[in-house]
């Protein structure tokens, strides 16, 4: 597992940052985000918490070895769930990759919270984890297959050499009785 984290502040009030959050893309420095779709949204009539589920489409060239190994394409999609809670003045955003998720997960958490009437703290953590269970089961299958192949070849080797020996010595006996 690999871990990433950072925190810094924006010199804007929390409400301005949270309003701005919905206008983050497109921006000229993040051209890798090419599409954003809201697939679910609810406003809790009790707590006022807004939950939004979105799918972000990204285009980013992967290194050739990754494309070859995993068959990835240029298009990658991410599921993002955010909660805006006006009562606690917290926004939490959780994102996880949909593409290549059978091989590895990238789990990101972001939080926006006020530090003063004019400043907002941004904190972010990310965990990248290969799906070890999958690697283990793939490695296990590979080993089993290799052992079976080895056994088959060993059997063939034995019976093949038996034939060679018999033919060789039968011939020699015939040649010089």
């Amino acid at each position, binding site marked *: 597992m690999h871990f990433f*984290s950072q*925190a810094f502040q924006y010199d804007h009030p929390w*409400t301005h940052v*949270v*309003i701005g959050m*919905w*206008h983050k*893309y*497109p921006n000229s420095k993040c051209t890798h*985000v*090419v*599409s*954003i*779709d*809201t*697939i679910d*949204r609810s*406003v*809790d*009539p*009790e*707590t*006022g*918490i*807004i*939950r939004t*589920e979105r*799918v972000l*489409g990204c285009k980013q060239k992967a290194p050739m070895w990754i494309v070859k190994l995993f068959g990835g394409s240029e298009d990658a*999609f991410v*599921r993002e*769930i955010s*909660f*805006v*809670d*006006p*009562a606690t*003045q*917290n926004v*939490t955003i*959780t994102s*996880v990759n*949909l*593409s290549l*998720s059978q091989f590895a997960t990238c789990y990101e*958490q*972001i*939080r926006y*919270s006020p*530090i003063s009437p004019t400043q907002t*703290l941004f*904190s*972010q*953590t990310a965990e990248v984890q290969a799906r070890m269970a999958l690697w283990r089961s793939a490695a296990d299958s590979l080993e089993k297959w290799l052992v079976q192949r080895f056994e088959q070849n060993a059997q063939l080797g034995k019976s093949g050499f038996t034939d060679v020996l018999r033919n060789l010595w039968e011939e020699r006996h015939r040649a010089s009785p």
Partner: protein
Amino acid sequence: MSQSLSEECTPLKQKYDSCFNSWFEGYLEPAVAASQSAETRAAYSKKKADEFQEKCGKVWEEYKACVQKAVKEKGLDKLLAQAREENPLTEPPTHPPSSGQ
């Protein structure tokens, strides 16, 4: 304004986003102010949730139908179902990144 993953949904998406943003910009600051007590918060939340439905409900239904179809066509519906099963995230996370680091 950003694009939809499907070109044909982009006009509906942008209409929906504009509707949400204009509602949200009127919602947020009073929502913070209304959080002084549970009663005022619930009264304000209920009123604004109804207002959102009234203002954006129709375009949302149209956009949702379009995007759901596109999600299916891209084969993302299965991946989404799997991700939702692994982590429904119906509640705010209990351990968000901590502040003040």
